[in-house]
């Protein structure tokens, strides 16, 4: 052992810099700056809503809230399912992980479907004044994130079938479920802003 150590030129053993931690740090920084885009949209939405003379387009009474509420419940619960998937992975129960992960993806897909149904029944469009624009921008931008999340989960699922990539996959799973919780929190704020805070003064 001493002889092999003497072969090493210096006190610092190769690989002393741990590369795994970087990815998560970088990803968290990325999420922080993403939340600022959403924050910009939320602030814009609130300011426009408070200041604009007429908010709802002609002939529109308000938004139907039942379908979005169901959607909200499903999306929020899917965050818990994702958490359990991660737990299974830590216990090295790969099949448990895959089942839970797939359930999360299904719930996310249902959310997207629900939003599609809602969009197709609405009586206003992107160009119906400020209201139309902000509504579609916010829900659409969020929906894009949900779809991205589902795709990323699919990628992680595929990876879990290559066992020697296990460690790498685990890192990715942590990141993707973080992303999923993030998308969830954003939706809750969005739901409160758009569906709960409907009455204008």
């Amino acid at each position, binding site marked *: 052992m001493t002889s092999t150590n003497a072969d090493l030129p210096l006190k610092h053993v190769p690989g002393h810099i741990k590369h795994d931690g970087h990815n998560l740090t970088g990803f968290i920084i990325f999420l922080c700056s993403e939340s600022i885009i959403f924050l910009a949209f939320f602030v814009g939405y609130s*300011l426009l809503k408070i200041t604009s003379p007429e908010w709802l387009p002609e002939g529109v009474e308000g938004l139907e809230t039942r379908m979005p509420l169901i959607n909200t419940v499903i999306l929020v619960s899917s965050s818990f399912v994702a958490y359990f998937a991660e737990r299974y992975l830590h216990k090295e129960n790969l099949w448990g992980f895959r089942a839970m992960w797939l359930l999360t993806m299904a719930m996310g897909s249902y959310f997207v479907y629900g939003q599609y149904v809602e969009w197709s029944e609405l009586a206003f469009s*992107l*160009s119906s004044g400020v209201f139309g*624009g902000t509504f579609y921008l916010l829900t659409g931008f969020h929906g894009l994130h949900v779809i991205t999340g589902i795709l990323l989960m699919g990628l992680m699922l595929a990876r879990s079938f290559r066992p020697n990539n296990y460690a790498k996959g685990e890192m990715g799973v942590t990141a993707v479920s973080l992303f999923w919780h993030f998308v969830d929190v954003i939706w809750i704020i969005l739901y409160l802003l758009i569906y709960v805070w409907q009455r204008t003064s």
Partner: protein
Amino acid sequence: MTTTKYDPRVLKAPHPVPGAPDNWKRFFSFNTDAKVIGIQYIGLALFFLLVGGLLAMVMRGELITPPADLVDPSVYNGLYTMHGTVMLFLFLFPVLNGFNNLLIPTMIGAPDMAFPKLNAAAFWLVPVFAFVLLSSFFVPGGPASSGWWSYPPVSIQNPLGHLINGEFLWILAVAISGVSSIMGAINFVTTIIRMRAPGMGFFKMPVFVWTAWAAQTLQLIGLPALTGGAIMLLFDLSFGTSFFRPEGGGDPVLYQHFFWFYSHPAVYVMVLPVFGIFSELITVYSRKPLFGYKFVALASFIITFLGLIVWVHHMFYTGTPQWMRNLVMITTMLIAVPTGVKVFAWLGTLWGAKIRLTTPMLFVLGGLVNFIFGGITGVMLGTVPIDIHVGNTYFVVAHFHYIIFNTIGFGIFAGIYHWFPKFTGRMYYEGLGKIHFTLTFIGATLNWLPLHWAGLYGMPRRVASYDPEFALWNVIASIGAFMLGVASIPFILNIVSSWARGAKAPANPWRAIGLEWLLPSPPPAENFEDDIPTVISEPYGYGLGKPLVEDEEFYVRRSMEA
């Protein structure tokens, strides 16, 4: 073990980057070595400095006489829009990212950036951005012409009805640049937080690393807001929404908030790394420890914080209520405090020192003088009564050019000369450098000093023709501008010929203290590879005789023999 430290096997030649030949061609490839990317950024940025400079000289050629005779007023609008955009997004940001790439890993003793591939991808987005932006010269209606602020309602008029118009391409290009900058910022911040050499606590980091960190934090907070605003602007322009259209209930001033929430901090994104360069160079060339190092380091983050809350000073005359104006005026003045801390630390370092007037130091001293001047005009503009009067005049143009070119530009030239030997392995020609400095200093002063008076006497900005009473100032300014064009000749000549045939640079030509100077010139692909030094003292220990790292002789020896 001491006996193995000087093992000759350690002195092996730097290993080549896998898959890339060790020649100039690697600068034109998708290379993941931060040092190659750094040079790519700086090279591309200097090319666009020339492009932006040519646009500026057409403008100054137009303004040499009062009437709009050289170019059409509508063409002039396109010129100043593109000039501003090229200079900010294709020269300043890329050149500073170049410094970040060269200096952050080498200064903190990291082998590379945290995410080398992301790093290369971020760089290659810059040419894409440039292509999108410059292709707008060839679409119907010409390039964007509503200024680099792109304020609605002017910017969301599309009289041609084409989807692909100059304004559309402008927003798209800015969005690409934003993505690239965010990718860069994530990389730099992660690298600084996670990859410092053993022993290098935050208060042992060089000031440049502090300032880069603060600046990139600003990018991460500010850019997403601009992106949000740009998405809305694009939808208004092309997809019939009315976020900023009063007819549909929208609010044009909201856009200004989004824009300045980023673009005010953006000036600190650019100036902070230059404060870092000043701090590094002043200690080296006056051979004294940096006066008040910890305060200088911390002041960077105080500037970051204050920079985020004063954007409304760009909107004093767009319906901002009086109480808010007063509040913003006070917070704007407060920025003078951390900035003053830095200036006094530099002056304190220079005080009584034996200063070596090399080209980089000349640029630092020139930049410092100009910065004090530009800071004073900034404080003047931060006061509501003055700003209401001169806000739309050439006084503002003079103010920000004193900072953006005469300070930031000077700092960048200083940095390029100072680290040229380290990263190219060749010495530059001091004589040519001094000619470059002299022409630049005189040209810049002639160009922007007179415009302060033109502005104070009421010459409006953003117009192609003006009252003949301002003619003299404009002639002087134009002469200065052409002189700056001439100044680029010795600079280019110097870079090209020294890189090709200059004397071989030693590892530490300035006898500077810092991890990067413990590397051979140019440094090998992975910097210290696995022999990462342990840092044991604060930076800038000039004249204190304390070693910077454990076994300093070992590293010095290796860098000399490589």
